[in-house]
């Protein structure tokens, strides 16, 4: 890794979106010291590896407040751009390996390893709220994911998705309490051993049950599963499937007089190039007006929750990325901020409260459900 880090010019294209409207690296936007910009971070990693700098609490904050949103890789003008996030991840990995990671990060990973979720909550609680049959060879497996399984707001999102699938007459099941963490955050934090273990556990389970298609609610799970080695199942994000159901006429939609703006989650958008499906879903609802924030699609501004930050939250405060984003959403005149990720949902709901704003944060499934149920 250190062989290539020196190629960063610290020119700062990577801090911005393609039209330069505002800073688009969430940690730089929040902290504003050059050391928290992608280039500053790369230079510091190099200095650390070259022993020009020793480890410190501040360096840990600089490193782990990178949310792996991939804006830098999208905007850097150099030929190595696709490697930038991997370099940062490798540095996180090294820090973890050397036992240097901050306690919050360590606990996060240990909880995943021991309990299958980052909060260390009991496995038995994973699906206790879920009123659904376990997978028994149905067509699709709905993968709930930690954020939906243990977080009340995520549970609500999962229920909305399930309700829609039921309305559309889909044959599907879940793994209930046997579900394992998808491993995305382990991957993005550079805990590749843990990621591989989770990937192999999940792949093995899917194989045993004869799962051919997995539908994920979280883009993080979607991203992780796409990286599973020897994957022999198809993986879709729920918005991809919902669009298909709408296009096949399985979901009949009635009018909703709403103005909505949509936030692209990093792990659906920049990491996997899915921008149009969620928009097509929203546009298919009669009466719904979709307005765009200035920073959208490839230029989307991250909620600040990636790479474990939805739990250890190094980017919180009055200028947190989530709060900045909520202000941007308000500027569009929309009454609803639509999301397609349970992490974004939780981050924005908290931000809306902190901003004392009357903007509503709704997942796409909930909006769609409102329209579908009216028939």
């Amino acid at each position, binding site marked *: 890794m250190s062989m290539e880090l020196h190629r960063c010019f610290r*020119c*700062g294209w990577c801090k*911005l979106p393609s039209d330069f409207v505002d800073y688009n690296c969430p940690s730089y936007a929040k902290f*504003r*010291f*050059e050391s928290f910009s992608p280039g500053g971070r790369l*230079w510091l990693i190099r200095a650390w590896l070259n022993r020009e700098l020793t480890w*410190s609490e501040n360096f840990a904050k600089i490193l782990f407040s990178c949310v792996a949103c991939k804006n830098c890789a999208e905007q850097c*003008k*150099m030929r190595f751009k696709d490697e930038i996030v991997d370099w940062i991840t490798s540095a996180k990995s090294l820090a973890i390996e050397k036992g240097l990671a901050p306690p919050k990060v360590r606990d996060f990973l240990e909880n995943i390893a021991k309990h299958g979720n980052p909060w260390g909550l009991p496995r038995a609680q994973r699906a206790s709220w879920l009123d659904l049959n376990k997978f028994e060879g149905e067509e699709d497996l709905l993968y709930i994911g930690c954020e939906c399984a243990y977080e009340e707001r995520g549970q609500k999102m999962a229920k909305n998705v399930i309700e829609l699938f039921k309305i559309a007459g889909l044959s599907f099941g879940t793994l209930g309490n046997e579900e394992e963490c998808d491993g995305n955050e382990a991957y993005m934090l550079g805990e590749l051993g843990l990621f591989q273990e989770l990937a192999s556990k999940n792949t093995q389970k899917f194989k045993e049950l004869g799962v051919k298609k997995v539908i994920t609610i979280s883009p993080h799970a979607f991203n992780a599963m796409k990286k599973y080695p020897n994957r022999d199942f198809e993986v879709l994000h729920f918005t991809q499937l919902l669009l298909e159901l709408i296009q096949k006429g399985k979901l009949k939609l009635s009018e909703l007089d709403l103005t909505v703006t949509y936030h692209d989650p990093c792990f659906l958008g920049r990491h996997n190039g899915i921008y149009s499906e969620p928009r097509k879903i929203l546009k298919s609802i009669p009466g719904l007006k979709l307005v765009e924030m200035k920073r959208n699609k490839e230029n989307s501004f991250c909620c600040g929750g990636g790479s474990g930050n939805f739990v250890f939250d190094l980017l919180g405060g009055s200028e947190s990325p989530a709060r900045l984003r909520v202000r941007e959403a308000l500027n569009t005149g929309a009454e609803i901020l639509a999301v397609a990720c349970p992490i974004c949902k939780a981050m924005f709901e908290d931000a809306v409260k902190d901003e004392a704003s009357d903007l509503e944060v709704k997942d796409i499934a909930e909006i769609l459900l409102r329209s579908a149920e009216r028939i």
Partner: protein
Amino acid sequence: MDKIYKALAEIVGEEFVSNRKEELYIYSRDSGLSEPRFPDYVVMPRTVEEVQKIIQLANKEKIHVVPAGASLSLSGLTIPQKGGIVIDMRRMDRILELNRKGRYVVLEAGVTQGKLQAFLEENAPDLCHSLPEAPPSATVVGNLVIHGQGNLTQAYGFNSSMISGLEVVLPNGEICRIGSCSLSPYWFSIEPLPYLAGLFLGWFGTTGVITKVGLRLYPKKKLRDVELFVLEDPKLVSEVIYRVTHTEMAEDITTVAQPYPLMFQGTIMIGIYLTGDTEEELEFKRRLIWSSLSELIKAKEGGFMALTPDMKVGFLEKPMSSLTRSADILKGGGFVYCGAIIPIEKFPEALKKLFEIAERNGVTFAHTGRVIGRGHCMMFAFAYPFNRADLERMEKAKRALFDSYVATLEIGGVPWKPGAEEQKLILERMDKNSVELIKRIRELLDPNKIMNPGNWEVEL
């Protein structure tokens, strides 16, 4: 807790001050080849009052201050030569006013080129400012302070001549307005008052901290195109520039000479940019420019090169990312350049010097240039990519850079944005009374010698 740290935290809030080693490390160096020097503190004010309090504190504590934008000048201009407080101005990033009919904007000092570009695109698409090819993360004010040049420089002169008003915190902490804004609510002009703006431009933050700027905007035409005139004889470059500028039809005129790709070796390319609101307007301008060069074409001294649409995209990008990408030519994360401001007829001499310097030092090189005014002078860049992981190559590039500064002076040019060492070269050659005047102005404005010492420092 450290007394100065505590005082700074009281001024800007604890989040926006640092004396932690990571911030000190990053602000101790820039992307060029200057020696790192560590600040003691980095601070990020949000308002002019905060800047004022920082300066007052610096006077009280006799600690140095260095105003910084994005530190992209590449010559170490924001590296604190003698330690102290680096003031990173980029939290002051509001665009305060757009006067569309009067064609100016009022900005805070931390606004980036990119932010202004995006703002105009959205709010005044028929207006633009003179945009340098620097990364869009560079600040507008940093560029004005160093007398930068942009795409409108050929038509209207150095970017700093497009300033229509300034607000400055003086080295003694007083807030001072310059131009019409000093006596009127409008920021439309620096003239016709005594020309105080000159006290802050080209001084590299040694005479005060600029907090706001009024900047002139210019008509932005709907269409933009580029023609590439290629020739081999450097002696004809000034003739081409003279003829094309005579037409007054070009927006921007640039020069390129580089050893790679091989097909361009031995040639000089002159980029002639034109703009128009309609195809007819463009065509009209194109015809005048072509006919101004027809004799040279007939004499087979040069000709226009056909550009594929793909090539055009690269040339027409604003700013041109290819210049940033040249830092990766040696897979090494860096390039430096000496921007020589020279009379246009000095082009052949400068190019010859560039070849000699590159050969003597065994370095890769490139030349880019930009015409300033209607051929009144030009910026001739002696540019050297280097590899940040290869110390020997870095040393060679450093030597080539220094030689280029010397060469610039030898041919009668003036180095642009010189680093602390190169400023000494300039001061050594400068008329003694001018040097004395610089010294007296600094002493008068900054009796405690707190502002960016090491820059424009006269050691008599």
